[in-house]
């Protein structure tokens, strides 16, 4: 006995440890399948325990007093599983047991249960609103620990003490349902999916799943349906209007174009402002190809698409948007702009499933410039005058129709999923073929995905591996801006003239045997016009991308309270780009008349590895819980490649070997003939880069009684980009508090859930590579070029301070949900390039300066309007308001302006102290103190009245919306579903340089109207102070609209309200067939502009970079899209 006593004492100690560790497993569910033999008659439990201990090695832990109340046991079993034997022993006993590791702990039964004898069994099934069974739903008797889960058919069976209880059905991603038993024995339940943002468990930074109520910051969830309902060629566009505080600006560059994603406003002057994309816990690349997008209004480069657009939307299980720095703090650098966390699908245990989806949609231009049809081409012998200030005509053909075509998008995706409890497989393939509204613009994409998950060593080891291969080709991505853009010559084509002959025969073979353009103006004029069909056929570009994404995770659970995870990933993107200019092209791109070509090839590789230790501090009997993550990571990013190009030697023969490497040496009269200099190569720099970021981080969560949660995080980064400065290391902390009021207090029953939350966080962001190490370079001719920038050895990383408070409320049984967040971020220590005065003999330097502040509110409001068996209707609003303020640029160095886009064509985008990010500066029409237009000239034919421009560029607007509101609705009636999303962006101003060009050339509707009414009506004043009310339209519009003219006159409200998406779906009833379900949906995107004041879609961007916001320079028009989607599940 002393020996046993001793053992029991030890056991008790151990038990305390185990209890604290929180690894108690209730019931016998996981007891070992060890079998025992037992033959006893009327013996005490104590004796049975002793016998069982000898047979099984299990220890028994009990209070002897407790056993005094037990009944003697009689039993004779052979080779019976241990747990069944225990069940027998404890049936009808006032005590029960739990098993912890190798110990059976005896405890008192809940007092109510002791006397209950009249038990009933309730069974039923749980389905979703589509009638699909849901396996794994937790079914619990309210207020007790009694419960079960549904099987693979969604069926359950539960024995309950009496018929008066209530069953609670809960499942992740679905709204919890309660049903009174009321004597019934069959209860069938339909669970409704939860509105986005209300998920009980959310994926947070590093892939850590946490309960929604413990989060101290706002996150919003997007389901796979929301991404895939209405297909787009860049999946991020599908998030538009669905997430509060998320601003999406698709580029105007046709199919496969990039998208600008901004969370809570732009904050970095010089760095990236787009969020970090994380797939299954691992950051991925989001970069475009080597040619990049335009960074000036002149354009002249093609967008090969960003990284995120490469993914197959069908592979996505869900998206979590972590908006604030707090949410993202654990990701450190790059995450200061928020994080888009993408969880991909994996195989599920149970039945094999095949999903097939096919979508076909048609795009057409959603609007076109307004043209006049009353006046024709300007007469006269003038070569190259293709303006339309000529005499009256009687109507004009629709020349745009000759050019624009219907775009199409045909996407087919198939996925196979199967698996056992041990391993699961997910395999998918998607093919996208899309054509743009401009001829020749095409996208071809293939996505292959294989994901394997497996559980080993008694589920202690979980392994998850995936491989993605993506191949994408984008043909003829439209070049925006003035250079090599077919829209310029198309739009300004003289009114009344027919463009069709130029389309039908765009080539004009000449005596040389090489194709020349058949166009009304050739190589003349400052507009650099080429025939639209020449541009698309004879200045073609193609971007090809091959991307491999490998991801592997192994997680080992040492104990319930401790697991370690190792993760590694590789993301390798190889981009090829080629653009050919045939010899008939404008001499701007073809200076020797033989044609030219541009080729680039680059490989960007990101390797990521991390190690996470997840722990729970064992404090079982306390109201406190402590858990957390400790870890470290390495991110290594390397870019290599080249661009090559030049004029051709043999015309129209596009091989690199045919490019001219050595411009002919010159021998000219009177100079030294020995001065023959050669170019050493045609290579233009792709500066390679290599950055490595190492980090150690930790996150500790404290909770008290499930109503107070405190989260502390800390991260320290070591960045190679900071080498050559005194400190490569930087640390930043965050703290967050979440209080569940509904758990703290007894609130009125109308309030189902109330949470208050607040966080403070810092996130650091390193500087770009090589910045701290200025090196001399070699020029194209082999000459040494000194680097005259000052070595910025004092540079520190950028730092964002962020504060956020908010609340999440649910009312009326969760029918009404409301969430509200206020945030403020200040981004300091930005690396600001300082252009010192030239006589300083230092060209540039970098200093840490600046303070860009974003503050704003976000809210979501959802209401479950109707919810019956046949008809359901959910409606939700999301809104956000952001105010951006440049508190400082670099006042220490007397620098109060930072140029995002330098002056070009009358547009300049700036950061000005006291202003906002991306303020647009332009010349305005000069007005006097009374607001009258000051006119030059004297009104005579030789000196017509002419508007003047202001002496300096003035602030004319900012493209960022002041307020955004999205309203989404989801209805279902029997087998029909109907979803629509209306969203509005309010406030902001944008510039149309296009309109200026069209006015200058006299093709626009306003010029026609002005001419028809005898002049432009103005409230003007001439040089002698006399009032002038009419100005000659040609003088007026050519002065305003000319390149670099008075672009302040071309600012428009950016307010736009649209029917963003609509989808009408029908699910076929399928009986006795191979199919599980068939769903067909009619979808549409960007269907109706309820309000749009600008002559273009103010949302689309010429570039998704920091500059060029809110400007249209012959951007491809936004498109309207209608399509059909078919989904088949096998």
């Amino acid at each position, binding site marked *: 006995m002393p020996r046993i006593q001793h053992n029991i004492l*030890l056991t008790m100690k151990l038990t305390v440890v185990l209890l604290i560790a929180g690894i108690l497993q209730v019931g016998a569910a996981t007891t070992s399948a060890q079998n025992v033999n037992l033959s006893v008659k009327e013996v005490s439990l104590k004796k049975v325990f002793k016998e069982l201990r000898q047979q099984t090695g299990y220890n028994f832990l009990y209070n002897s007093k407790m056993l005094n109340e037990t009944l003697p046991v009689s039993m004779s079993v052979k080779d019976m599983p241990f747990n069944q034997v225990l069940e027998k022993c404890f049936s009808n006993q006032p005590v029960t047991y739990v098993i912890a590791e190798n110990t059976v702990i005896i405890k008192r039964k809940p007092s109510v249960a002791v006397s209950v004898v009249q038990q009933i069994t309730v069974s039923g099934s749980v389905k979703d609103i589509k009638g699909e069974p849901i396996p794994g739903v937790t079914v619990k008797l309210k207020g007790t620990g009694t419960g079960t889960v549904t099987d693979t058919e969604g069926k359950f069976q539960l024995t309950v003490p009496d018929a008066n209880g209530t069953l609670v059905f809960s499942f992740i991603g679905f709204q919890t349902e309660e049903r009174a038993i009321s004597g019934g024995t069959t209860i069938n339940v339909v669970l409704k999916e939860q509105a986005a943002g209300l998920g009980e468990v959310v994926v947070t930074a590093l892939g850590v799943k946490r309960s929604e109520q413990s989060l101290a910051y706002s996150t919003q969830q997007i389901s796979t349906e929301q991404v895939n309902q209405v297909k787009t060629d860049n999946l991020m566009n599908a998030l538009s209007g669905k997430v509060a505080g998320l601003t999406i600006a698709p580029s105007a560059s046709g199919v496969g174009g990039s998208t600008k994603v901004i969370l809570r406003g732009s904050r970095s002057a010089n760095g990236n402002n787009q969020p970090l994309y994380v797939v299954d816990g691992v950051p991925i690349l989001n970069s475009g190809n080597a040619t990049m997008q335009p960074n000036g209004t002149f354009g002249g480069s093609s967008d090969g698409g960003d990284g995120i657009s490469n993914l197959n939307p069908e592979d996505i299980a869900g998206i979590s948007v972590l908006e604030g720095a707090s949410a993202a703090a654990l990701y450190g650098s790059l995450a200061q702009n928020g994080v888009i966390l993408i969880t991909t699908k994996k195989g599920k245990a149970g039945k094999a499933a095949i999903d097939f989806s096919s979508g076909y949609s048609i795009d057409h231009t959603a609007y076109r410039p307004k043209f006049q049809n009353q006046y024709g081409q300007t007469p006269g012998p003038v*070569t*190259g005058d293709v303006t339309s200030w000529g005499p009256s005509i009687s109507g004009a053909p629709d020349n745009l129709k000759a050019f624009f075509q219907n775009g199409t998008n045909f996407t087919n995706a198939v996925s196979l999923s199967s698996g056992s409890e041990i391993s699961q497989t997910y395999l998918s393939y998607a093919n996208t073929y899309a054509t743009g509204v401009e001829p020749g613009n095409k996208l071809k994409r293939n996505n292959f995905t294989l994901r394997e998950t497996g559980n080993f060593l008694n589920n202690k080891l979980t392994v998850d591996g995936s491989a993605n291969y993506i191949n994408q080709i984008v043909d003829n991505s439209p070049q925006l801006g003035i250079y090599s853009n077919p829209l310029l010559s198309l739009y300004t084509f003289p009114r009344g003239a027919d463009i069709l002959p130029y389309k039908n025969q765009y080539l004009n073979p000449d005596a040389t045997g090489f194709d020349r353009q058949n166009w009304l103006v050739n190589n*003349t004029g*400052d507009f650099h016009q080429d025939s639209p069909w020449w541009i698309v056929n004879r200045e073609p570009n193609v971007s090809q991308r091959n991307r491999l994404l490998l991801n592997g995770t192994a997680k080992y659970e040492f104990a319930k309270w*401790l697991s370690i995870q190792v993760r590694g990933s590789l993301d390798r993107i190889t981009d090829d780009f080629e653009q050919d200019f045939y010899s008939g092209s404008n001499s701007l791109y073809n*200076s020797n008349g033989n044609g030219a070509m541009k080729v680039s090839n680059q490989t960007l590789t990101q390797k990521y590895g991390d*190690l996470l230790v997840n722990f729970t501090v064992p404090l079982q009997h306390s109201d406190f819980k402590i858990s957390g993550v400790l870890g*470290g990571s*390495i991110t290594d990013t390397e870019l290599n490649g080249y661009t090559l190009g030049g004029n051709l030697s043999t015309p129209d023969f596009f091989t690199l070997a045919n490019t001219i490497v050595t*411009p002919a*040496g*010159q021998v*000219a*009269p*009177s*100079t*030294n003939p*020995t*001065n*023959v*200099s050669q*170019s050493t190569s045609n290579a233009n*720099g792709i500066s390679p880069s290599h950055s*490595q970021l190492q*980090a150690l981080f930790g996150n500790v969560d404290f909770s008290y009684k499930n109503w107070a949660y405190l989260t502390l995080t800390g991260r*320290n980064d*070591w*960045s*190679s*980009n*900071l*080498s*050559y400065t005194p400190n*490569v290391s930087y640390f930043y902390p965050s703290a967050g508090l979440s209080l569940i009021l509904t758990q703290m207090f007894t609130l009125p029953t109308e309030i189902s859930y109330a949470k208050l939350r607040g966080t403070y966080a810092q996130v650091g962001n390193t500087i770009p*590579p090589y910045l*701290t190490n200025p*090196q*001399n*370079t070699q020029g*194209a*001719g*082999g000459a*040494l070029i*000194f680097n*005259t920038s000052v070595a910025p050895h004092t540079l520190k990383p950028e730092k964002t301070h962020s504060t956020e408070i908010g609340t999440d409320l649910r009312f009326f049984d969760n029918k009404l949900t409301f969430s509200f967040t206020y945030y403020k971020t200040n981004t300091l220590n930005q690396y600001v390039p300082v*252009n010192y*005065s*030239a*006589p*300083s*003999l*230092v*060209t540039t*330097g970098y200093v840490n300066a600046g303070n860009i502040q974003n503050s704003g509110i976000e809210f979501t409001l959802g209401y479950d309007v109707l919810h019956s068996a046949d008809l359901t209707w959910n409606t939700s609003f999301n809104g956000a308001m952001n105010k951006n303020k440049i508190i400082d640029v670099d006042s220490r160095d*007397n*620098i109060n302006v930072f140029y995002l886009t330098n*002056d070009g064509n009358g547009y300049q985008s700036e950061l000005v102290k006291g202003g906002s990010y991306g303020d647009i500066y332009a010349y305005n029409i000069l007005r006097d103190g009374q607001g009258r237009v000051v006119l030059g000239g004297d009104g005579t034919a030789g000196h017509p009245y002419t508007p003047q421009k202001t002496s300096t560029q003035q602030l004319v607007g900012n493209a960022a919306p002041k307020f955004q509101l999205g309203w989404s609705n989801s209805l279902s009636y029997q087998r029909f579903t109907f979803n629509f999303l209306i969203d509005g962006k309010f406030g902001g101003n944008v510039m149309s340089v296009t309109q200026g060009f069209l006015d200058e050339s006299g093709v626009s509707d306003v010029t026609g109207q002005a001419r028809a009414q005898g002049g432009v009506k103005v409230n003007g004043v001439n040089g002698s102070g006399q009032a002038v009310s009419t100005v000659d339209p040609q003088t007026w519009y050519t002065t305003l609209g*000319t390149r*670099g003219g008075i672009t302040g006159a071309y600012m428009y409200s950016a307010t736009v309200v649209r029917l963003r998406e609509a989808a009408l779906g029908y699910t076929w009833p399928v009986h006795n067939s191979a199919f599980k379900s068939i769903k067909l949906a009619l979808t549409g995107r960007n269907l109706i502009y309820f309000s749009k004041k600008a002559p273009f879609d103010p949302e689309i961007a010429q570039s998704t970079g920091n500059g060029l916001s809110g400007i249209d320079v012959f951007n491809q028009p936004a498109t309207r899209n209608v399509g059909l989607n078919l989904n088949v599940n096998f």
Partner: protein
Amino acid sequence: MKRNLKSIPGQSGLIGIFIIAAALILPGCTKNFEKYNTDPTKLSAAQTVAIAATAFGPMEQAIYSNYQIAQNLSADAWAGYMMSPTNFRGGINNLNYALVDGWNSTGFNDQYKLVMAPVSKIAQAGTATKAPDVWAVALLIQVEAMDRVTDRFGPIPYTKAGSSLTSIPYDDQQTVYQTFFKQIDTAVINLRAFTSNPANAGKNPIGTGDLVYSGNYAKWQKFANSLRLRLAMRIVKADPTTAQQQAEKAMSDPAGLLTSPGDDAAVAQSGTRNNDLWTVTIAYNGDNHLNAAMGSYLDGFKDPRAPIYSVPATDGTYKGIRLGIDVSKGAYKTLASYNCLSTFTQTSPQLIMTAAEMWFLRAEAALRHWKGVGGVVEDPQVDYETGITTSMQQWGVTPGTYLSDATSKQVNYVDPINAANSTPAISTITIKWDPAATDEQKLERIITQKWIAIFPDGQEAWADYRRTGYPKLFPVAQNFSTNPVIDATIQIRRIPYPSSEYQTNATAVANGIKLLGGTGDNGNSRLWWDVNKGNF
């Protein structure tokens, strides 16, 4: 129990290993960081030293950096050489005195960034003492470049350039010129020391990196003297004593001046760089056309260089475009343009100083009774006529009866598109030297011919025009200057300081404006050497 006790330490051990591994593998291993943060496509310190001589080419080319906006659309136009048929900025720009800061500032900033900054890097490497000859060439390039800057703007930061990041003092123009002369002194001494040392025979330290003379120091010495003579004559009205002293020093130096076209200084093209005149004329679709003034003299004098300089108008004359007209009113591209088909071709070098210019400077020096080459006052007629013949030789044409033409004069200008722009000839000067003429007439003759000879160097020609008032040029047709209005009768005298100086060197530029005097930072203020008085 035993099993539990056994397994837990085992697990702890494993955890420990993981954590230690994490601590070791993950951070702390930053020893490669500097290697990662070094761009392999850029030069190492050792490579920089190895190819240091090649830095001269880009510095020489930088004299014409941003040529179109730094010189072509300002000095070339105001010198009567060039007018553009392109309606830049809605027809409101430099060409009608609506000065464009964004253009003109490049003519200030580029020389600092691309010439003085690298020269300062060369100085930092100790070149002045380690390789005085190389330093001499660097100084000459710097003086050549910075003279163009001070002659556009007036007082500039020079002696203290590079002394501060945020406040770099301006020097008055007299100090700038005095410094130029001293730097030329240094260059001359250093080069002479090198070439007179027999040990250096056949050595060519900067070699082909030098795009002007391929490292020929004899020619650089001639260049140094010629540059001194050019600068000396520039200040003749402001400081006649120094002017004469420096000019006589230049002319008496044993290394000599540029005397024949073989001595001409021109910057060769290299790499992807093209001749700037070709670029603005051909690549930019005819931005660059002949000015009415140039055409009216070439046509009037029946100058044999006309077809070398210019592609004629469609009517076969060398009719150019009048400065400052409204070019949107017609097809002005049909008028005469620069000849970029056979003269200023894509690869032809760009002249910075010619022998012909020296002969005209010598003619003017003779007119002023200064001692010329050989220590005696030269015959201005000989110098004048040699200047013309040297120029013709430079361009491969023969003078014929040109030198004896005593009747041909500038012709009236008739604008074929818009008669409002037509204007009668304003000069009656002829070609043939007239020993009986007044000094003023002789000067007009010398400078008018010098102007034709040094085409297309508008920078030098505009400086001569401001200094002497010659050649007589048509006033700007439309004057859109404001605040204040630039006096079109005396024509524009300088370019206002770039706005970048106001933003980043505010205190110093304010002082620079004080040093400038005149009517402040505008186009009316005269530079120090531009004294409002007679030429004699």
